[in-house]
């Protein structure tokens, strides 16, 4: 079964008014279970919009969207996915553990059970010593790891990530990419990942969806075939560079239209 099935999806903002913006037109994309798919493209290509459609944070103007075999809305109500944003979005008044417990609290889990799960998640992101710290006592990279732990707390089979490492420095970023991959490998999670970075997309993904702006559409889907388990050595691999070149080529046709300002470039 595919995790996400997108058929002829279009999204327009301010529909029918003089400043109507066609954010996405006629998107078709099928994401298999366990697959890691990146969305890449210049600002304004609608990649964040597409992610928000999958998350049912906004409704499509037309087309059909199936997530985990049900409507996107039902998938959201069932908390079938976890989500992480560029800003960690941790609540500063909650401890690290309590932040991770938030989605479980909303689901009505009892206290002992959710604390246990939070500790389990903290072990996963290697922050066990920081359960009772507050977010502002942590570095940016650690905060982002907490946000990922929170997204994974309900053990979702689908993870939606909107430039989660965008605000991190290069070293932390590469480290986090490797950790994310090992977490996903261990849990078999499907990931839809929005990014600006070509190497990041290629390193992480089975497929890279290249998008172009105005109106947002899919121009090319690049298959990344890197043999074996991906680790830091992968970054020196010829197949990795081949992937980068392929994505760059695909983007080249896109990027150079006139200056595009994003309507949704978060």
């Amino acid at each position, binding site marked *: 079964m595919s995790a996400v099935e997108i058929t002829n999806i279009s999204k327009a903002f301010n529909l029918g008014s003089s400043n109507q913006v066609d954010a996405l037109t006629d998107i078709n994309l099928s994401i298999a279970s366990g697959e890691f798919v990146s969305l890449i493209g210049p600002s304004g290509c609608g990649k964040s919009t597409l992610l928000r459609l999958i998350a049912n944070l906004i409704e499509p103007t037309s087309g059909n969207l199936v997530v985990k075999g049900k409507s996107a809305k039902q998938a959201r109500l069932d908390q079938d996915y976890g*989500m992480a*944003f560029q800003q960690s*979005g941790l*609540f*500063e*008044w909650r*401890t690290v553990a309590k932040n991770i417990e*938030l989605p479980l609290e*909303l689901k009505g889990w009892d206290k002992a059970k959710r604390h246990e799960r939070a500790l389990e998640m903290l072990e996963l992101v290697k922050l066990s010593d920081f359960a009772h710290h507050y977010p502002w006592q942590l570095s940016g990279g650690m905060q982002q790891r907490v946000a990922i732990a929170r997204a994974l707390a309900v053990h979702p089979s689908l993870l939606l990530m909107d430039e989660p490492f965008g605000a991190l420095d290069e070293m932390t970023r590469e480290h986090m990419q490797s950790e994310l991959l090992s977490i996903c490998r261990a849990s078999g999670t499907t990931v839809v990942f929005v990014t600006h970075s070509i190497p990041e997309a290629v390193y992480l993904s089975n497929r890279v969806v290249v998008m172009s702006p105005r109106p947002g559409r899919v121009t090319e889907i690049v298959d990344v075939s890197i043999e074996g388990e991906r680790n830091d050595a992968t970054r020196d691999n010829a197949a990795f560079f081949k992937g980068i070149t392929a994505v760059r080529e695909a983007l080249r046709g896109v990027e150079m239209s006139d200056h595009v300002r994003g309507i949704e470039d978060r």
Partner: protein
Amino acid sequence: MTTATTMKKSEAARRVRRALLFVLSLLLVAGVWEIYKTVGPEAGGKIFGWKLLPRSNNHAMPHVWDMLTRYNRPELRGSDRKIWSVVLAGAWFSFRLALVGFAIGSTLGLGLSILMARFKIAERGILPYLVVSQTVPLIALAPLVVSWGGKLHIAGWTWPRWMSAAVLGAFLAFFPVAVGALKGLTSAPSASLELMDSYAASWWQTLRKLRFPAAIPFIVPSLKLAASASVIGVVVAEISTGLKGGIGRLIIEYAREATSDPAKVFTAVFGAAVLGLAMSGFVTLADMYMMRNRPKEASA
């Protein structure tokens, strides 16, 4: 561990320094007062034809020492009640009224802010009236509240006279809370709201887990305003409704004796000031408790 203790130590040192600064500023004000008394014109003075300089004679500006010693003398000639105990009792009476007013006012303000945050239409409908309400002079309102209250008899319960003063305190106190809390409740970042959406959280869950905690840094300063506003409301209400027993009543009574006993009215004025300080100190304590785990730069 060691860093924690040093932090605690420096925190204690900071508090001592602040207390000393406060005492120093009091002394400074007293000093300026006395200096003006020696150099200022006895009968007041004009600057560019405007009568700006206050009179510095002992009737208009008693010596600081006289005001302080006045506390230890009887309220009335021949009475054995020292004035400090009268002022203290009056301040305590008004403090309780202000506390009731503050509680009613902030509950009402908070309720209104939640209503306005929940329904955009309520904000548009209510907010202008809130602003207008604050332009109604309290003195005009006071007799109305007293007469409305006097007509209330609910199941054997009659409106006590002091309730009018508390309600007028609440009338001034609810406004800053309603406006501040509304700003706070709508201050949650859109990313956090989206996060709650992605969890399929209900509006009430979002209010409890996100909007309200995010609003605390906005609510606390508005509560401080409400605390002092409730004191002002109660003091003015005591004067304009003729309620006996409070500090407001003392001020008006003692002011009548200003010519014969000029230091007396100041004892009551300082009592009212201490009352205001006590109210906002009370809120500051609550603030410190609520903000204890927040990043320091975010606390207001």
